């Protein structure tokens, strides 16, 4: 399976781009964190655990990113998101047409103290990254992120052997993953892959110590020990997570450069030169109900709140904080999430799928009956932007000028259906050209949000005389049927793993059918062009041109109907200094500060 595309990280670019950030993350005196600075955050769903290779939920990532050092990370202020070194000294050296990546690891990074180290100070080395990455392929770990490293040469063979023997041999040398010396990690990929650097910035790919994993083998989720700025102090599962600044953390000086956002200068003025992290303790409460979180924020019990859609009309009328919040000094930080919501047709379906003109017309007519504007107003409460292009804003490859060729136009949709022989009966509903009753089967889960979506689709297809049959399934069952190309249609979502267009375009790549190509879309011409994009650097105009061509082909064939990318509204109390929501980074708390004197009494 191929699922990634390229961020151009040439050797030269590496040096230039890396230099500034090496300075930004330069070693600074440790213990800057003030224990009196206690940050209160909320999670809207329970975390699952803190073993980087075993978890896949957003909330566990938020914690893991604070505890574990990945090789790379993102510049806090740069938009679109820009890779910078974290545990690495600089961005990797990339050779052999993005088949070989070499990372130099900073010296003098130490794991947080733990009994597993038997009192010794334990330095982070390249071998720790070799071990940590290998863990994703160990079948016993059943890692949900295994596919992200499938391109590394030799790991698949190691996994196959483990499946035979029942034991994963961590000591076996692998061609594609080697510690060249104590501080140099070399990764060799089977194929060109410019996006591999992004993978090394994912929260999951932070380094763990083998001694710790083996000491707590029974429940590695409960014993995260990393080299990052925070360590887990207390964990009441599904309820409360307390992080404290890691006293052994090397620290860094806040030295990010302002971007084009006018607020950046204010942030830089407040933060520049500070030793980080400043916040001594982070207390995270799992608050599933938005009313409770919203009231807790207003009560001053939370410092930062992710405002969900249903409270947006109250809290941010006209997309500005309401008078009460403004008077209390609270402010809104708003970004467009790098995500995409869309509805697809199963192209392998014997009735609705395929490339015959009348089938294409039917799918396009159904898509044209859906009014995204109404959807944004009714379901999203205005807290999303209509998507015209499958690569969302802020993601490399986004085309802000692209306009969809399947706009809301029920009149045209009706004409299209009439033209291709989908006749209306006496009851107003259409039949297939061969007179069979025409019923569109659409699947969704039994949630309130999906019920609203069902009703909108119902209303939409009524406009063009098509009967809708909604099949309700639990999410795992939907996935199972989808992977088997047995699900006709559903509305799906994709959140960027990293800010590159390939993360979205690969969703339509033919060989990814039965994996994450939900539409089971297989068009040889499309696949050939897509494969060409993978050999091109991400920022290249040629790749962008090919993406436009690819998307137009998919759109013409009526594979997906794009809906929206959501806004993420973060409400921030006045005592939070230097906060800026990042589209990809999750543990921003290591980059901002608290001023307790500004807290409401």
């Amino acid at each position, binding site marked *: 399976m191929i699922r990634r595309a390229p961020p151009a990280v040439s050797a030269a670019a590496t040096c230039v781009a890396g230099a500034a950030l090496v300075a930004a993350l330069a070693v600074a005196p440790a213990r800057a964190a003030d224990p009196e600075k206690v940050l209160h955050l909320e999670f809207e769903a329970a975390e699952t655990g803190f073993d980087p290779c075993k978890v896949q939920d957003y909330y566990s990532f938020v914690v893991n990113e604070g505890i574990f050092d990945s090789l790379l990370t993102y510049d806090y202020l740069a938009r679109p998101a820009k890779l910078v070194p974290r545990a690495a000294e600089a961005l990797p050296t990339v050779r052999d047409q993005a088949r070989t990546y070499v990372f130099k690891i900073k010296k003098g990074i130490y794991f947080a103290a733990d009994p597993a180290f038997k009192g010794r100070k334990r330095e982070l080395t390249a071998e720790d990254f070799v071990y940590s990455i290998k863990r994703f392929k160990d079948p016993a770990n059943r890692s949900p*992120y295994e596919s992200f490293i499938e391109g590394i040469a030799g790991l698949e063979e190691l996994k196959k052997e483990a499946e035979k023997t029942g034991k994963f041999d961590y000591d076996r040398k692998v061609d594609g993953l080697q510690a060249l010396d104590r501080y140099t990690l070399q990764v060799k990929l089977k194929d060109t892959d410019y996006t591999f650097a992004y993978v090394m910035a994912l929260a999951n790919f932070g380094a763990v110590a083998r001694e710790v994993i083996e000491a707590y083998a029974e429940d590695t989720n409960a014993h995260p020990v990393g080299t990052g700025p925070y360590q887990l102090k207390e964990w009441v599962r599904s*309820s*409360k997570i307390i992080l404290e600044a890691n006293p052994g953390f090397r620290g860094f000086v806040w030295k990010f450069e302002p971007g084009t956002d006018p607020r950046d200068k204010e942030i830089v003025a407040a933060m520049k030169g500070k030793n980080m992290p400043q916040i001594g303790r982070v207390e995270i409460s799992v608050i*599933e109900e938005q009313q409770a979180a919203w009231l*807790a924020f207003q009560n001053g019990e939370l410092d930062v709140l992710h405002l969900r859609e249903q409270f947006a009309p109250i809290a941010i009328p006209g997309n500005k904080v309401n008078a009460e919040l403004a008077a209390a000094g609270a402010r809104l930080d708003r970004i467009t999430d790098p995500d995409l919501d869309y509805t697809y047709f199963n192209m392998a379906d014997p009735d609705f799928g395929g490339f015959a003109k009348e089938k294409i017309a039917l799918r396009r007519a159904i898509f044209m009956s859906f009014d995204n504007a109404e959807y944004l107003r009714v379901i999203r409460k205005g807290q999303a932007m209509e998507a015209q292009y499958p690569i969302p804003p802020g993601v490399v490859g986004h085309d802000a000028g692209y306009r969809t060729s399947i706009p809301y136009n029920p009149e045209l949709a009706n004409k299209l259906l009439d033209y291709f022989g989908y006749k209306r009966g006496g009851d107003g509903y259409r039949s297939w050209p061969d007179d069979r009753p025409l019923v569109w089967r659409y699947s969704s889960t039994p949630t309130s949000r999906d019920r609203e979506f069902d009703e909108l689709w119902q209303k939409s297809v009524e406009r063009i005389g098509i009967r809708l049959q909604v099949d309700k399934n639990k999410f795992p069952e939907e996935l199972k049927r989808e992977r088997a190309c047995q699900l006709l249609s559903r509305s799906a979502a994709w959140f960027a793993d990293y800010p590159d267009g390939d993360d979205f375009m690969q969703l339509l790549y033919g060989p990814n059918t039965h994996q994450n190509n939900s539409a089971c879309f297989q068009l040889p011409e499309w696949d050939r062009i897509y494969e060409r994009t993978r050999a091109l650097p991400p920022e290249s105009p040629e790749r962008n041109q090919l993406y436009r061509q690819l998307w137009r082909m998919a759109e013409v064939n009526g594979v997906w109907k794009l809906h929206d990318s959501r806004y993420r509204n973060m409400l921030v109390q006045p005592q939070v200094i230097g906060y800026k929501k990042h589209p990809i980074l999750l543990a921003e708390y290591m980059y901002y500060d608290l001023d307790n004197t500004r807290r409401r009494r």
Partner: protein
Amino acid sequence: MSAYIIRRIWQMIPTMLGVIVLVFILFNAVGGDPAYVLAGKISSAEQIANIRRQLGVDQPYYVQLWIFIKQVLTADFGASWSTNEPVSHILATRLGPSLTLLVPWLILSTLISIGLALAVAYVRASLTDRMVMIACTVGLSISILVYIIVFQYVFAYKLGWFPVQGWGDSFWQNLVIYASLPIIILLVVSIAPDLRLYRTFVLDEVNQDYVRTARAKGVSENRIMWVHVLRNASIPIITQVMATVPGLLIGAFLLERFFSIPGIGREVILAVERSDFPVIKAITVYVAAATMIFNLLADLMYKAVDPRVQLK
């Protein structure tokens, strides 16, 4: 008595087997295959097969059923499929917060409902009785969700009498500070139906001959109500209370969610959302066992309060 108890315990075995089979069929029919979620956003058929193998869901159904039965016999349900937390640890840590909320509620609710039922039954057909019954009907008609939203907004946020949400480290802190408002909400919700029900039980008794006889003998009204009437009305009340007790083990899902109480109710919902069968199995089996045990206890209590009851 002991022969009766042994017989009843013996009868629990086929009932439990029925529960096991029913849960097993239900989960396999509508539970969904957890491997597809656990495998992550991008997963191959081999990865899914590996997960199914590790979870044991690739085994023939009869093997899976036998494993379930062994788990019940050994009281070891393994670990959660989604978090790898031992199921025994989940139950041990989540039950405490739920019981901190629900045990005081059950005791208070029962005492208050019985007291009020005796009082309104005593003034039956009066304006007070009618007003209380109307209030109960209105109270019954309002969803618990409305009570939660309004009470949390008014008493916790606006008046600041209680915390909006949260849970602490000590039992007393939790009981007095964090559980107070949820308990009050539960009382408001539960007293109305209980009061109506218990009033009916009491009214059935106050018209009996023995009450008239007691009055004729000059026994005080207090003694008549609290001793004679209550004792005779207590069998259906015991039935009602004992039927409620096993429900305590599955917590109060809505309250736990709105007040961020780390109880078993939230865990049940999480387990269902995640198709986490080991957790679902364990909780279902424990609730079934508790139901049977409390039914037996209810029967024994009938005998204790009314010697005429024969245990056969």
